[in-house]
């Protein structure tokens, strides 16, 4: 498909006749991140990148013969895109059974994206909980690739246990090597061999007492974690306009047609999934 700006109300996409028909691709690499999260690297049958997403955008991934569902795109390379998928039901169970080389169909990219331009020149605090690091990672990777455009980067991430931390290569190897980037990790319960922090993400965040001056926050994780982290951030002096998150809704079409993912007059697949906390305040409480 294409990387046009589909949020421009005047844009009519001419690149594909039919945005609801997926392209057949193959899974070229599967990485087990945790006991219940796997990352799938996807490429077209002729070895190309299916499409070029912006950080935070979504892909409709279908396992032919089983079903399709929407996932955030966590990373992309020259000739692939990647999604990290947690086992939660029939489709994700089937995805977890896949082996490398099998076919899969994808369509997208859908939705708006993280405000990569608005954040230019600013420090960014990335906060993730559990699988919530998956959407955030697309922006972290983007900020690292465009390192000179952004100020200091902090990645604050927590999970239930050390085994449940996703993207361990990035957390322990790749990101700590990046200039002016700090990784702060925490787990919920004490564990043998773990010398780092033991605290829930909101409490850990509060200990760190970040300075809100010139800083944007990207916050994704379970709803309850988001709620308490937001309270902590507001206490530190962050404003809601500067806290960015993503929403999840059941989706079928991904292009604002099937009606399913609305919150008030907004469609999460079209106007989201990325919203600032102040934008969310404007929407009815039906998330």
């Amino acid at each position: 498909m294409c990387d046009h700006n589909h949020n421009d109300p005047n844009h009519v996409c001419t690149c594909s006749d039919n945005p609801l028909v997926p392209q057949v691709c193959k899974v070229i690499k599967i990485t087990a991140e945790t006991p219940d999260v796997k990352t799938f690297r996807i490429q077209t049958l002729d070895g190309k990148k299916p499409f070029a997403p912006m950080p935070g955008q979504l892909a409709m991934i279908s396992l032919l013969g089983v079903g399709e569902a929407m996932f955030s795109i966590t990373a992309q390379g020259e000739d692939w895109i990647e999604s990290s998928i947690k086992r939660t039901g029939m489709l994700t169970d089937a995805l977890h059974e896949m082996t490398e080389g099998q076919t899969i169909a994808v369509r997208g990219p859908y939705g708006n994206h993280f405000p990569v331009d608005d954040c230019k020149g600013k420090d960014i605090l990335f906060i993730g909980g559990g699988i919530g690091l998956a959407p955030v990672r697309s922006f972290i990777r983007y900020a690292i690739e465009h390192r000179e455009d952004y100020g200091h980067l902090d990645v604050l991430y927590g999970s239930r246990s050390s085994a449940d931390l996703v993207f361990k290569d990035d957390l322990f190897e790749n990101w700590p090597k990046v200039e002016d980037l700090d990784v702060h990790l925490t787990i919920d319960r004490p564990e043998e061999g773990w010398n780092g922090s033991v605290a829930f993400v909101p409490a850990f965040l509060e200990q760190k007492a970040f300075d809100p001056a010139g800083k944007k926050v990207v916050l994704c994780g379970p709803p309850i974690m988001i709620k308490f982290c937001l309270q902590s951030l507001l206490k530190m002096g962050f404003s809601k306009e500067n806290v960015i998150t993503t929403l999840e809704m059941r989706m079928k079409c991904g292009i604002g047609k099937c009606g399913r993912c609305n919150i008030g007059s907004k469609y999460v697949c079209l106007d989201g999934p990325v919203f600032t906390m102040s934008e969310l305040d404007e929407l009815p409480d039906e998330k």
Partner: protein
Amino acid sequence: MLLPKEKLSEALGALAAEANVIAPVKWEGDVFFMPYKGGDVCLEGNGKLPPKDVLFPKTEKMYSYSIAKGTMTEHNDAAATILFGVRSCDAASIERLDKVFLEQGYKDGFYSAKREGLAVIAMGCDKPMATCFCTSMGIDPMKAEVADVQMCPVEGGFTVEAVTEKGKEIVKKWDSLLDKKSKAKPAKVECSLNINVPEDFEKKLMDMFESPIWDDVTKACLGCACCTYVCPTCYCFDINQDVHGDEGTAFRCWDSCMFSDYTRMAGGHNPRPSKKERLRNRYLHKLAYYKDRHGKYLCVGCGRCIANCPAHLDITAFAEKAMEVE
């Protein structure tokens, strides 16, 4: 121009010889939009169901695939269709659906193929039904949106006006049947049911999201979804796959926001857990959300949901109650 009443079958026959004509026909006591096979059409009352499925079928194949071969074949066959006898409410619904399926950044290929091949011959409505309130929704019973040809019932026949190029082509085929000297003019018509909704009603409704009235106005609902199946502007759909061994076909079919699993997510969380949230979403979508996005009501006042609800829920009664809320 006037088409005399007794020439109507001939006029439709001329069109049906070359294209697929869909017209309102009486069948087992009700009016349905069906392929025209000659004979009488029925212009009394609204169709039991709107002609929406001409553009948006109840179920439609999207694509077929073979897992082993890695092939993907799109299904999208649309025949040129003339839709005859569409009242202003149903014609307006096509305009509302166009906004959804053809705009907002993505053109729905299945809808657009059918829409491009569609010509609409609208029929003015001089006998609104007891449940009709289209004029309250900003619609003129005698002048339809999206009409290629506008006809209106008058003494002795129907006025005929070609509105678009497509319409001119149609009227050309009727050349020998038309009385071109006729000066007949359709009468002005007001709907039977009137709700005087204020200018910025949608804003008021959006501010009422937390109002206690929702418990009251939704408590009789059975969650049967009948209201959404008969509605000309409801467009929710589901996408599914029909699988046989290695091959499969993806299809879409009408869905309804009134069903509990419509918004239920894979983990079990449901943002609209009860009929209160679901009917609230339906009413607000019709009267507020869509207008906020596209500037018009998504309800065209056809009254079908009122006439068919087994629990006698009435969107106009709801609107009147909402207007009274301080």
